[in-house]
């Protein structure tokens, strides 16, 4: 059995020996370097673009909107975002012009000599006044998405219940911070087409976007080794690819566009900030939730990107994993003149689950019950119905909670405070605290998304090897390791004989995007089906039954044998996107996070001692990789909790756009982690697997907030809980 074994990562050896080729490691002959000229204004009219006559432009290519051969549109959900601003800029750092030169310094120097004349206009920066504002950014009301999920009669029950608890929660922007910045190379081909090679999650998004930009479809997209995406390389690479392609076509040479980190941080998408209002009716005697009305407001920034989908996931997860008979959730996603926000691990769920869990803590506080007891009383059980009306089966909520609590009983590691360099030693005054939070996370696309998408995968016999063709990229999460294990398992052969073809759209089918915790669970299932089909095809060709290798030996033809499988909808999900009623997700993951912290009472710093988690993963296809995803996600969640803050200037530009100042946790900040796996198999996933990519990010922040409160009484309802905010809350408490 290869499934459930810790097979070594397919991409590991090349990465640790420095052999892996990231996009910036490749430089074709004659390749030019590109640089993007960006708006310094949140909102402005472009009065003209001129080239400094005193600068030597002989070896420089310059492109503006006028040079785009096809449509000036980044095709995604709506066509609102231009490839290059034309006449008006709607956010700071918006691309206005492109330059390319023989080396980076020349390109950078040239960018300073592109003179863009702007007339600054008054921007709209506050999402709370955006909807319906006379200042129009998007369509006629600035609303990217408005969704209501309703079950029962929330308003009536809220009006009739004595105990109604209200609270408001706020979360800020968060940066994905993949290892290498955005980077793309466009290579004009001899046959007139163009190849795009770069760092990305979703090759077919780029195909779709570039067809419109170039006005033809003679292009292929190849993924370079990609050091992490976290959603940041879902939709954004289409823009980088469009820019590289426009430059390359004008210059007639390959063009490489690699973002500097400061540019990347200023320009690219982030997690949506949110303001979330909760009103929940509770029965004092039983501690049971009676009704809830939740209002969510998200800031989408200046263009739509994937914001409606973020809103969708947010409204569906807004109550956390708790049963409530009467629910109304209203989600509003609006436009502001700030850089567009977009996909990020969790896709709206981490925002609302911070709020939902903090609200449970608030209810517990007001009822005089323990936060844990209140959760136990209200956790989803089998047969409970979600706000969209989905009846839940195989609910793992209680199981993950009890397992995490049991794991957390084992002796707590000693506090690191006394040994901390420069931490004050014995003079430091700290208080310990523990927090517990629970997450649910719908795996894969919402509703019938997969049935509509019909993701495909091919598997082929090529010589004595088997090759897998998918568009599902490995972005560090392990796809290239998991898929061969699935195929080898089905065929009963050794995993070394199974390889992944390059993720090149010239040869791989569209498996759907590498997003939404869907790759192992959904595409893994399609790959498994393809392997089964291949075995059947081989049997048919040879006219016999038996083991794969025996059949292969009997094969007369040496030609490759390739089969294609497509997502099969046998789940019978019923979903109405118009009313948001029905089976919102094919299945749910469940997770419990228990965090032990030391709060420094003099500085408000939160120091992590241990993070215990228990997560229902369906089936751990590769336990080490699975644990790695869960631990990495948890640490990213701790960054969201206490240190990752995007500081903006008055134009909405990121001021702390360097790694010195945008603070993510280092290895020293990371706690000891205990990561327990629960396997409640999902019938629709390969070998029972569920999506696990996003759930670990959902509730660490909520657990930390509860732990801080337990440690020192400081109540924080806003992320990130920086030392400045913790100290202020401490002074208030």
């Amino acid at each position: 059995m290869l499934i459930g074994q810790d097979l070594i990562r397919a991409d590991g050896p090349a990465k640790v020996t420095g052999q892996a080729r990231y996009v910036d490691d490749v430089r074709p002959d004659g390749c030019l370097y590109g640089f993007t000229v960006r708006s310094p204004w949140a909102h402005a009219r472009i009065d003209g673009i001129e080239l400094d006559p005193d600068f030597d432009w002989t070896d420089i290519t310059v492109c503006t909107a006028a040079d785009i051969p096809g449509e000036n549109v980044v095709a995604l959900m709506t066509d609102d975002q231009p490839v290059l601003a034309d006449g008006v800029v709607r956010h700071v750092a918006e691309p206005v012009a492109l330059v390319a030169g023989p080396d980076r310094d020349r390109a950078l120097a040239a960018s300073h000599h592109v003179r863009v004349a702007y007339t600054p206009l008054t921007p709209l920066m506050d999402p709370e006044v955006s909807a319906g504002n006379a200042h129009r950014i998007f369509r006629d009301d600035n609303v990217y998405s408005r969704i209501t999920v309703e079950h029962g009669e929330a308003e009536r029950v809220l009006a009739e219940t004595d105990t109604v608890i209200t609270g408001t929660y706020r979360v800020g922007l968060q940066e994905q911070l993949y290892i290498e910045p955005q980077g793309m190379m466009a290579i004009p081909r001899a046959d007139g087409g163009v190849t795009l090679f770069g760092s990305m999650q979703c090759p077919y998004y780029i195909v779709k976007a570039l067809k419109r930009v170039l006005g033809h479809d003679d292009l292929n997209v190849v993924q370079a080794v990609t050091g992490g995406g976290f959603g940041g390389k879902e939709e954004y690479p289409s823009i980088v690819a469009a820019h590289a392609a426009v430059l390359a076509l004008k210059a007639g040479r390959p063009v490489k566009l690699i973002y500097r980190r400061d540019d990347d941080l200023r320009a690219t998408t982030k997690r949506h900030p949110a303001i979330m209002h909760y009103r929940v009716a509770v029965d004092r005697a039983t501690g049971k939730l009676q009704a809830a009305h939740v209002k969510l407001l998200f800031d989408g920034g200046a263009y739509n990107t994937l914001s409606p989908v973020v809103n969708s996931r947010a409204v569906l997860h807004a109550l956390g994993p708790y049963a409530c008979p009467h629910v109304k959730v209203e989600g509003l996603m609006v436009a502001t003149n700030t850089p567009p926000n977009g996909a990020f691990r969790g896709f709206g769920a981490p925002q609302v689950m911070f709020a939902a869990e903090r609200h449970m803590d608030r209810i517990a506080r007001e009822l005089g019950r323990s936060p844990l007891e209140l959760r136990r009383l209200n956790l989803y059980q089998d047969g409970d119905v979600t706000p969209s009306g989905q009846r839940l089966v195989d609910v793992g909520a209680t199981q993950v909670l009890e397992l995490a609590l049991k794991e957390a009983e084992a002796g707590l590691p000693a506090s690191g405070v006394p040994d901390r360099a420069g931490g004050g030693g014995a003079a430091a005054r700290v208080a310990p605290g523990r927090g517990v939070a629970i997450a649910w996370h719908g795996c894969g696309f919402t509703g019938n998304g997969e049935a509509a998408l019909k993701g495909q995968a091919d598997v082929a016999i090529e010589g004595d090897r088997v090759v897998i063709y998918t568009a599902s990229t490995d972005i560090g999460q392990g796809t290239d390791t998991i898929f061969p294990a699935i195929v080898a398992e089905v065929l009963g052969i050794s995993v070394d004989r199974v390889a992944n073809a390059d993720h090149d759209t010239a040869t791989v089918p569209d498996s759907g995007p590498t997003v939404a915790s869907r790759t192992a669970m959904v595409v893994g299932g399609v790959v498994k089906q393809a392997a089964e089909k291949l075995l059947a095809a081989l049997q048919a060709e040879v006219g016999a039954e038996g083991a794969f290798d025996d059949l292969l030996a009997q094969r007369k033809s040496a030609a490759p044998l390739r089969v294609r499988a497509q997502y099969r909808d046998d789940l019978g999900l019923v979903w109405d996107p118009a009313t948001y009623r029905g089976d919102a997700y094919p299945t749910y993951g469940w997770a419990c996070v228990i965090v032990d912290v030391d709060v420094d009472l003099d500085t408000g710093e939160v120091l992590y001692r241990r993070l215990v988690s228990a997560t229902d993963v369906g089936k751990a296809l590769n336990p080490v990789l699975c644990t790695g995803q869960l631990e990495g996600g948890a640490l990213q969640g701790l960054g969201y909790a206490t240190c990752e803050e995007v500081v903006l200037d008055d134009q909405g530009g990121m001021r702390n756009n360097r790694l010195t100042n945008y603070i993510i946790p280092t290895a020293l900040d990371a706690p000891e982690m205990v990561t327990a796996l629960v396997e409640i198999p999902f019938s629709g996933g390969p070998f029972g697997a569920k999506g696990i990519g996003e759930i670990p990010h959902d509730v660490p922040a909520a657990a930390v907030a509860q732990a801080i409160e337990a440690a020192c009484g400081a109540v924080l309802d806003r992320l990130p809980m920086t030392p400045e905010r913790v100290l202020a809350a401490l002074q208030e408490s």
Partner: protein
Amino acid sequence: MITSHAPVHCPADLAEALALRAAHPEAMPLAGGTDVMVFVESGTLSPPAFLNLWGLAELRGVQADGDGLRLGALCTYTELEADARVQATAPALVEAARTVGAKQIQNRGTLAGNVANASPAGDSLPVLLALDAEVEVASVRGTRRIPMDALYTGYRKLALAPDELITAICLPARHPADVQYYRKVGTRLAQAISKVMLGGRLRIEGGVVTEARVAFGSVAAFPVRARTVEAALVGRPVDAAAADLVGADIKPIDDIRSTATYRLEVARRILQGWLAAVAAEGASSSR
């Protein structure tokens, strides 16, 4: 600029280095390069030339200096942390060294580089102030020592002539009645630029403070001594309430990393915490 094509002068010995320094005062001295590289890459600085000090044997190593120590300008943090004499004389400096960047930076970055870089957030600087360190500087004209307390004249401004190089940092002997302290409040546990640092030294003789040094970093244009607090501490048993006077000595600002309010409050609290711990220690040891 991303790449620098500026020439790099590589003197073989100190005499040549000083001659080059006098001839090319515009050439930027380069020690470990951990500050310089960042400035060059980000385009903050584009010096026309560099003067590479890394090969100068005269600037290496820790030596006795009377009863004190002379730390060669090229001493790295890792060297200081490992040196038994430095541990004995300046435990607070060792503590500060351990907080700089992370291992890689400690292996390459130098103490003199930290001093010369003159960042208000330079982690070693408040301790050097608290320890009454002196900075030894040399030029073709000769050698002199500048007390740490007189080194900084403004934001990133040093009392160094254009032809001078730092050759060493000198620490006086440790008095047996001295306690030293270092506290860094950064943005995280490694690779952290400080929001506030405190370097402290108290001489307690017969239960009474006879000398006090309290210095803060990241709360002014350059690291400063809290003289009001120092004066209030001297002449009596350790009194943690002296920390409440810190507002008279420091005027921190809001910036990208923190707020003035936070810095002032934290400066007061960490100082109070240290003084309270020293007072408690003294009370228990005299019983």
